[in-house]
């Protein structure tokens, strides 16, 4: 699967799509492959403030649990309602299935994230 060039990526295998000061956050195709079948996504409460690098939720597959980390600081403004009943959307369409939307308090933090090329190098 291709890694879209309009996304930024983290070393924790999350992606971020920034429009204005709001960022959609999801996990990459690589991450979902490593996890296997996702059965449960633990979502944060709307309104919660998170700092860059802080855990904000978790994603569970049949065999493992993995924490989700905020790629940038801000406030959780939306969680994806689809994931409650269809957590496997993350497997089927990882780069379109956002998990949370965060209103960034300092969107310049995004400049330190990886671009497509750098992320593809990371996962080799």
């Amino acid at each position: 699967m291709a890694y879209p060039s309009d996304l930024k990526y983290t070393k924790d295998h999350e992606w971020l799509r920034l429009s204005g000061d709001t960022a959609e956050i999801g996990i990459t195709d690589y991450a979902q492959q490593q996890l296997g079948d996702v059965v449960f996504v633990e979502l944060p409460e709307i309104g919660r403030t998170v700092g860059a690098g802080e855990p904000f939720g978790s994603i569970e597959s049949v065999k493992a649990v993995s924490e989700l980390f905020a790629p940038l600081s801000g406030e959780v403004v939306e969680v994806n309602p689809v994931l409650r009943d269809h957590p496997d959307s993350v497997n089927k369409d990882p780069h379109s299935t956002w998990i949370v939307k965060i209103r960034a308090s300092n969107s310049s933090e995004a400049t330190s994230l990886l671009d497509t090329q750098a992320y593809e190098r990371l996962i080799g």
Partner: protein
Amino acid sequence: MSDAIADLRKTALNARHRASNARMVAYAGWDMPVEYSGITAEHLAVRTRAGVFDVSHMGQIEIAGKDALAAVQRISSNDASRLKTGQIHYSGLLTPEGTYVDDMLVMRMAPSHFMLVVNAGNAAKDYAWVAEQIKPAGEAAAVDTSSRYALIAIQGPAAGEVLRPLTGVELDDLKYYWFANGEVANARATIARTGYTGEDGFEIFVAPNMADRVWQALLDAGRQADVIPCGLGARDTLRLEAAMRLYGNDIDESTTVLEADLGWTVGWKKTGFIGEDRLREQKEKGVERKLIGFEMVDRGIGRHGYPVVAGDKRIGVVTSGTQTPFLKKAIGMAYVPAELSAPGTDLTIDVRGRSSAARVVSLPFYKRT
């Protein structure tokens, strides 16, 4: 990474798994497929049709000689005198404390010849233990014959119809926990009606150089029925639904047979087996803790190692837990104080810092109809 793979042991089907793009993991020192098409798809295939597994990493120890029965009776918790030739039972290889060196299947190959099928990660330890502990039993020798066998399992309601055209063995006459010698796809084979999935199925012992032929024959014969290759991931979720214990998770050298609620694997009518005194004492006095099944009430999954708590106090531990693909529930097993072991009892599990409600349920979670 490549060094690590080089150090791992490979089954006779390793090239087949890698060529088929199975996802491989290191398991008990072996390079094994954890999933082919996905744990959920594989799990459902076994519950509704059939799946084929490479379980060649399992170890085999054969005990033969004039006093082989006495030797097995000494080291095994179950009563091997009740096995007829061709019959199999589940048993424990125990320490003097009544805890598990390993769990195993005992197959009676001939009146004075037995084969133990043991866990991959314990095989070397088991062999050393068995070889030493059978000495007082008289004239019997133990041999580690693991390298002589590849082991392929076909599990699921369609297993019989897939295997039938490939063998002359009368599968309809082969009862659950019996085996027969014959052939599969023209390879000499021992076919056991056993498994680790809670479904009907067969485990097929063949020479390693015949493994690929048998594997392919099963998949070819199963193509019409949409039988698929499966990995260790689905094996784990399937066995958990069936409440079969996993060594290293649910049982180990710190858990007794009775704590694991496997008293039915003890031959209470025999005497002189390792661990007997402790187990008789526990049977009389009762156990302080017991392995139970639970379902999550709150959302979330109680996983291996998560504490069972009462307020601030840790009172037990989850040994296995997952979201099961077939029952579509978060289930698991845990050791809890005996007074909290009755089905219906409310439990609290610490799921990564969050107190989550769970409830004791009777085992197994899944029983085939």
